[in-house]
């Protein structure tokens, strides 16, 4: 009985672990044959509402990274970008990219602790009382020391801004309209330009894996 319960818990943890591990993985149509793909047409990327020109920046970054990965990239007269994969292939895919985040003004708060180092207060009280003759006067001295050890507490927050670029990528078959691959991804950084480049690099890296087998 005890062993069965332990086994079930173990299976549950294994399923949870696998699901968490695959949480950020792209969704892919496993039955689609990517070896038969000839070209990928890159759709024009619309600007993010906060940043005019952001679509063109992302499009240029994606073209650049595809070239760095060894693919032939053509920019046609109608401003369309075409990535050629396999001259013997017959299928055409369309890659569309939506910018979900494009900002260098994401506010991040750093909480900090202020250490109160405390105080030490010493009070010395002296009094004298005479008992009849001045020669026998009694002097009394008392010392009181109060120590405040201080405290450590979270006392405030400091803010700074970081860049964040997010995308949703979709690849569909041009002829059938079948969605064959989708993924959402984001990246953060200090500078917007390098963050955009890393976001494009990671996205294209995942797409390239489809055609490397």
């Amino acid at each position, binding site marked *: 009985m005890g062993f069965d319960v332990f086994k079930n818990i173990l299976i549950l943890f294994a399923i949870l672990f696998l699901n968490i591990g695959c949480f950020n993985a792209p969704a892919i149509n496993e039955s689609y044959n990517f070896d038969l793909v000839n070209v990928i047409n890159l759709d024009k990327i619309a600007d993010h509402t906060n940043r005019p020109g952001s679509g063109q920046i992302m499009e240029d970054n994606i073209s650049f990274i595809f070239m760095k990965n060894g693919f032939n990239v053509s920019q046609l007269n109608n401003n369309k970008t075409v990535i050629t994969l396999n001259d013997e292939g017959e299928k055409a895919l369309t890659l569309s990219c939506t910018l979900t985040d494009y900002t260098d003004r994401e506010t991040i708060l750093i*909480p900090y602790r202020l250490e109160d180092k405390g105080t030490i207060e010493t009070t010395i009280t002296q009094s004298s009382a005479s008992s009849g003759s001045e020669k026998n006067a009694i002097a009394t001295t008392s010392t009181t020391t109060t120590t405040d050890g201080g405290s450590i507490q979270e006392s405030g927050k400091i803010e700074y801004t970081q860049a964040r670029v997010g995308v949703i990528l979709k690849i569909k078959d041009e002829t059938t309209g079948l969605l064959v691959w989708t993924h959402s991804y984001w990246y953060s950084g200090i500078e917007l330009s390098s963050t955009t480049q890393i976001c494009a690099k990671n996205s294209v890296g995942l797409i390239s894996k489809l055609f490397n087998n």
Partner: protein
Amino acid sequence: MIKTPKIKLLALIFLFSFPIVSYCQSDDYLKRAISAMEVGLFEESLKQLNKALKNDYNNAQIYKLKALLYEALSENESSILAWKDCIRYAKNQDIINEATIHLDYLNGF
């Protein structure tokens, strides 16, 4: 022992400046770090963050900023270590997710 007035003066400056320096709190270092980062002095910013961590060693957000600065400086090994520390002291899932995304990238997928 101290003979010349110049040395006396320097000694006095040293003695009076020491308690001021030692009393600096995390927020002072953090303010300096962020100011340095905003003007592009990433290495100076890292120095100030390391000082802030001496008073506040388990602050995940400071490790996160360190990791981002190391990434901007293309010091990937140091960035990986900082992201790992960030995860170790993180108290919410969002920062853990962000650290994981960065570690995936830095470890070459």
